[in-house]
């Protein structure tokens, strides 16, 4: 907890605020103060007895006055009043002739007595008022300090739980009692420990948000000052919690806004991508249709033109299908609806299928493959991995520049199977290497091949769902390498004993 060090500085305040705990100590201190003032009067008297023959009593009275002032300054009102009265009596008894009797020869001394007594009383009441004010100022300062420290910790608290921890720690440190914050209805019933519960509301009565409850000692209930401080604590806690709630709301709102913005960007991107092939198809169909409108030819299309048009529409339709598939794939990945149908698959068979799928964009055998024999089987979803690798290879073909065939290298690295798809294309700028796997992120260069920017992000989703990783890096000598690592299961397929071959012959 971050408040570990605060209680040390707060220990002093505990004494200031918790009168209950130190009542007997206070009484002892009071007794000591009265004793001190008594001793002082005795001391001054003993000092005065030997010199009373040479010094006039009116001057000796100054010594008593000094005791009264000193008592008022340092011992409080009571001891100084005591000192005043004792001084008058001692002065009369020991210093004013005739000695050792309260009888006074010269009635002028009555004025001295009255002066000494009234000066003593006035000074003691004045100084004790100053002392009280100083004490109150100190208490206020300590309260302010306590509130300041609480609010400092509260403003550092990032969430409601941290704020609650801070409040409870400060209450324990400042008041020396354990506290509970409860939200919703009902005061907490637990942790009473035989004491009575003092609870202060968080928020106004109309909009009560919760309760700060402390367990107080029934012998020494909280005085109004401590109660006020506790209320101030509650207000601070409430404000902090409200602030946290509001900032949470604001963050949610911002997220929501960002998501909406993203969604509308996606939507416009998708509809653009869908509309492009669709308008080609519509264009082709309308040309073919209008060409033979109402049985009579409006314009003549020769066979070559017709088949070219149809071919265009056909490839555009396939492109649309590809896009829709990618979108569906993305949706499933994002919805977490991707369930892997894992089975032991042959890496060679997998790559064969990947190459076959890329075939129409690739003259057969135009991929250079390095694949070692006797690779362990991979426990993976064949269909999804085909898609993941297919997208990567697609990119290698699309962005590969066409001068040098893409390469596929397979190797075993420690526990992983590593598949590297490399091309000699124009490469990916360093800053974009990570971003190419982001959704809808496409490298922008003029005249580049079309695409949706979904392929690689789908690949990443699939590879990661398999517990693997995918990265792009610059290839030395130019071009790009996409590295895919997939974990190879330690556990091999259980080699079920094959039945005797001879028995299985069916002739």
């Amino acid at each position, binding site marked *: 907890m971050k408040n570990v060090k605060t209680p040390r500085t707060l220990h002093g305040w505990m004494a200031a605020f918790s009168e209950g705990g130190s009542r007997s100590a206070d009484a002892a201190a009071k007794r000591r103060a009265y004793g001190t003032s008594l001793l002082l009067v005795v001391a001054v008297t003993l000092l005065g007895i030997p010199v009373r023959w040479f010094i006039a009593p009116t001057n000796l009275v100054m010594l008593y006055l000094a005791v009264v002032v000193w008592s008022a300054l340092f011992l409080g009102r009571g001891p100084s009043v005591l000192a005043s009265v004792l001084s008058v009596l001692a002065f009369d008894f020991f210093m004013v002739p005739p000695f050792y009797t309260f009888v006074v020869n010269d009635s002028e001394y009555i004025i001295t007595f009255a002066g000494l007594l009234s000066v003593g009383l006035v000074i003691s009441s004045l100084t004790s008022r100053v002392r009280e004010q100083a004490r109150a100022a100190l208490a206020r300062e300590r309260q302010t300090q306590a509130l300041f420290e609480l609010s400092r910790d509260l403003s550092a608290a990032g969430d409601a739980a941290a704020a609650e921890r801070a409040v409870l720690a400060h209450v324990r440190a400042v008041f020396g009692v354990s506290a509970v914050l409860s939200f919703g209805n009902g005061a907490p019933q637990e942790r009473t420990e035989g004491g009575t519960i003092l609870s202060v509301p968080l928020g106004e009565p109309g909009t009560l948000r919760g309760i700060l409850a402390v367990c107080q000692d029934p012998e020494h209930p909280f005085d109004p000052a401590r109660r006020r401080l506790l209320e101030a604590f509650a207000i601070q806690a409430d404000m902090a919690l409200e602030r946290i709630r509001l900032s949470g709301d604001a963050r949610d709102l911002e997220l929501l806004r960002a998501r909406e913005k993203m969604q509308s960007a996606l939507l416009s991107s998708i509809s653009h991508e869908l509309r492009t092939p669709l308008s080609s198809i519509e264009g082709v169909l309308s040309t073919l249709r209008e060409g033979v409108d109402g049985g009579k030819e409006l314009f003549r299309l020769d066979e070559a033109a017709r088949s070219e048009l149809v071919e265009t529409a056909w490839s555009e339709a396939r492109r649309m299908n590809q896009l829709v*598939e990618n979108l569906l794939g993305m949706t499933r990945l994002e919805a977490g609806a991707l369930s892997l149908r894992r089975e*032991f*698959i042959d890496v060679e068979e997998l790559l064969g299928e990947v190459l076959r799928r890329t075939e*129409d964009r690739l003259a057969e055998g135009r991929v250079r493959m390095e694949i070692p024999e006797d690779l362990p089987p991979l426990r993976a979803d*064949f269909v999804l991995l*085909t898609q993941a690798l297919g997208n990567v290879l697609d990119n290698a073909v699309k962005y590969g520049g066409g001068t040098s065939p893409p390469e596929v290298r397979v190797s075993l690295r420690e526990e992983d199977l590593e598949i590297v798809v490399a091309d000699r294309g124009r490469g990916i700028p360093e800053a974009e290497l990570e971003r190419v796997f982001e959704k809808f992120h496409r490298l922008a260069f003029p005249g580049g091949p079309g695409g949706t920017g979904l392929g690689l992000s789908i690949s990443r989703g699939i590879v990661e769902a398999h517990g693997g990783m995918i990265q792009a890096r610059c290839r030395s000598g130019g071009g790009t390498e996409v590295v895919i690592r997939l974990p190879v299961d330690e556990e091999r397929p259980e080699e079920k004993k094959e039945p005797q071959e001879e028995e299985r012959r069916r002739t």
Partner: protein
Amino acid sequence: MTTERSEATRVLVVDDEKAIRRFLHISLQAKGYDVSEAERGDEGLSLAAIRHPDLIVLDLGLPDMDGTAFLRHLREWSAVHVIVLSVRERETDKIAALDAGADDYLTKPFSVGELLARMRAVLRRTAPAEEEPLHRIGRLAVDLARRRVTLDDREIPLTPTEYEILRVLVTHRGRILTHTQILRLVWGEGYEEGRHLLRVNMSNLRRKIEPDPRFPRYIFTEPGVGYRLCDGENRPGNSGGW
């Protein structure tokens, strides 16, 4: 065309999408098939009972019943060939349909060329040529009578299991067989879970009969579903993916 009506192969298309029904109707009819249509599963079942089609093209996403339920009902009284249509990402549906008795599947969207090739492959089974012991697939020849396999007239030595796999694929030439079906046909009941056996043997078999096992020309992988044997040169367009 109308005079040959009784001779024409009867095809029943069961699909709830009107555009698909229409386009199939037109293209299949142009190819000389006698086409009837059903929009719903129950309608399809009763049409199948009334018209005794030779082949049913069945969409797996029907509004009133799912494809496997249709197949289960159908298989109670009919052995008619069925080609199912489904969207890409539903491998499990395809396998379920194939294991429930469908002969083949096509992934939407598909071209008529693909459909016709699948239909021919499926219908070939009923033709008498089925009984012929010698099968030629490209440069590959399989003589079922003498249990001999040759590639370019050079005999290929196969283990009994490899031969059995090839035999099963050859007799279902052009059609897809699910992993389970192959396992059951080659190893017998109780081996349906032995996928790795099939994988290992298939890999060895391909090494022996494929000119380049990385670019299969004869035995094709149907991702996540099974295998299909056909001549690579005439193989219909690709399928698989999501």
